[in-house]
């Protein structure tokens, strides 16, 4: 049922713009893979190359071990959900869902049974006789998903399926898509620019930039251990904080100098960092991995509060450390006023260091 997708050295350019740059990618059978990136990063083009809606300039595409590079979409064993839903306006919901099976010349009674089954799964069995113009956006979306699932595809491709829904509905559909994937188990490739969607849905996330995958990992790893500065800055609300720092050594201990202040590092890193004394680095840390002390004490990083935003479950502080601005998540009970100077403690284990020039994370293993 579920097939492996393999891209080998796939390249696709539009004129001089390279949308997909020599990409290698393996999606495991049954996996939910999210292609995440800002607009124009080539994620939709990658999906369309898998679907066969774009012809690749070079490289091969395999689905279930079969070379489908030269095959049209209809013969690749895929189904796709479009951003616009692309529900046929001149057909009823039932006809829309049955369309693909009719193209396959499935017997009529079998089509009827399959349509009913998938409509029940997506809770649109009441709407089967309606036309798309009589449906809400959320309902149309369900029709589009049902129309794809009824094909029992080896691979399900989704191109920003939730981006046209309002916020509340998006939240609800997100959970439903996840549940659906668990029930159906089809290999799924899902394109989005919404990092929260990516984190919540993906078994793995492929973060893309300029036609390349810059990191391919589990949501946890991508969030916690971004491979480059770009990933840290793109994923998370608020995004990862970055501070300019320099590696220094005093009294046999290696530490990071942020302005006039020092930040301790993980003991395991000291060996490698010891060889880098004097090198400027970028220190990355997430808002929730910074503790706040009401006053700057010994061993803390002094910071000036610019804004305090209570967000219900937490309070988000915007603070200034030297020339850098940081976001810090604290408990909503902490009372701070703009202008106040506080002390910050960075959680040692959660610090991430990047090469200042390439933006790539430093590796310590």
């Amino acid at each position, binding site marked *: 049922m579920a097939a492996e997708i393999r891209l080998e050295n796939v390249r696709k350019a539009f004129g001089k713009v390279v949308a997909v740059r020599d990409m290698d990618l393996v999606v495991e059978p049954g996996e939910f893979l999210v292609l995440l990136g800002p607009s124009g990063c080539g994620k939709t083009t990658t999906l369309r190359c898998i*679907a*066969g*809606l774009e012809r690749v300039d070079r490289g091969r595409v395999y689905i279930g071990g079969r070379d489908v590079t030269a095959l*049209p*979409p*209809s013969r690749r064993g*895929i*189904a*796709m959900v*479009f*951003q*616009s839903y*692309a529900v*046929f*306006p*001149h057909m009823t919901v039932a006809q829309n869902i049955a*369309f*693909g099976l009719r*193209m*396959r010349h499935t017997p009529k009674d079998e089509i009827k049974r399959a349509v009913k089954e998938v409509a029940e799964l997506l809770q649109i069995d009441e709407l089967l006789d309606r036309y798309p113009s009589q449906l809400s956006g959320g309902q149309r979306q369900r029709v589009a998903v049902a*129309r794809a699932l009824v*094909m029992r595809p080896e691979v399900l*491709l989704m191109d920003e399926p939730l981006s046209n829904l309002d916020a509340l509905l998006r939240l609800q559909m997100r959970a439903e898509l996840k549940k659906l994937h668990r029930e159906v188990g089809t290999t799924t490739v899902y394109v989005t620019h919404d990092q929260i969607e990516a984190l919540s849905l993906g078994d793995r996330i492929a973060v893309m930039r300029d036609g390349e995958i810059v990191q391919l990992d589990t949501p946890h790893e991508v969030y916690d251990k971004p491979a480059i500065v770009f990933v840290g800055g793109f994923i998370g609300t608020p995004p990862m904080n970055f501070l300019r720092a320099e590696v220094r050594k005093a009294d046999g201990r290696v530490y990071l100098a942020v302005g006039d202040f020092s930040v301790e590092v993980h003991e395991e890193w000291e060996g490698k960092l010891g060889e880098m004394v004097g090198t400027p680095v970028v220190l990355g840390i997430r808002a929730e991995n910074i503790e706040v002390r009401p006053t700057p004490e010994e061993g803390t990083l002094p910071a000036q509060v610019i804004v305090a935003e209570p967000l219900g479950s937490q309070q988000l502080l915007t603070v200034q450390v030297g020339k850098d601005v940081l976001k810090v998540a604290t408990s909503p009970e902490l009372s701070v006023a703009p202008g106040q100077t506080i002390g910050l403690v960075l959680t040692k284990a959660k610090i991430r260091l990047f090469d200042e020039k390439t933006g790539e994370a430093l590796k310590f293993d």
Partner: protein
Amino acid sequence: MSYPRLLRRTLLYMGVTAFALWVLIPIFFIGISSFTPRNEIYAWPKPIIPSHFSLDTMEFFLGSYGVLNSLLNSVWVALLTLSFTLAVGAPAGYAVARFFFRGREAFRLGILITRMFPTALLAVPLAVTFIRWGLYDTLVGVALIHTAMALPFAVIITTGIFMGVPKDLEEAAMTLGCSRFGAFARVALPLALPGLAAAAMFTFVISWNEVFAATILTVNNRTLPAHILTTIQASPLYFRFAGGFFMILPALFFMFLIRRYLFHMWGGATAER
């Protein structure tokens, strides 16, 4: 409403009214006259509303020598033109709407430029060529010329129609098992059908109204406008009125049906009504 705005409005409506009257008054008189008893047409002073409604004039017109025959010719030519035009124009419109190709914009403009070339200049070479090819004085020959005239409009209208059918829909059909052509036939075509019908009517009217080429290229197989043009000088007044009315009729009827697509063609966004 502020004073300058009011003034602008008033001027606008006055202009529109004047323009409408300029077009409508002749149509009104032609229409009225063709249903007036024959003797009343010559009356002076002429009553604006005839004393009674009469089919007399129309009967005389339709019964005149050659009218029925040329009417049939006109219908045949219009139908042939329509088939030729759609057979060539609709695929061209689809191509312009869907595919990026080198010179696409030049093609869109160039297609209109063909309409700027005056037919009068072509009259003699056309006649000579048609005689050589054996197309002279045939309905197919006239239909070919009409096709050449209607094609630019047909391409522009169908381009607009196919642009209105989202590409996604065809792609969705392709992922669901259709070939490229299957997706076109099962999804794009049914959705474009009302617009294509409008383009067809427009083409029909262009051919129906065309008089110059039809007059030059035929001798015995006249279309209705050609027939009327060549006989009108020798005809009584009521014949002219009835002929005029008969010529206007399909144009009025079809234009009313397809006006929303014509707006579309001129690029107006006001067509949603």
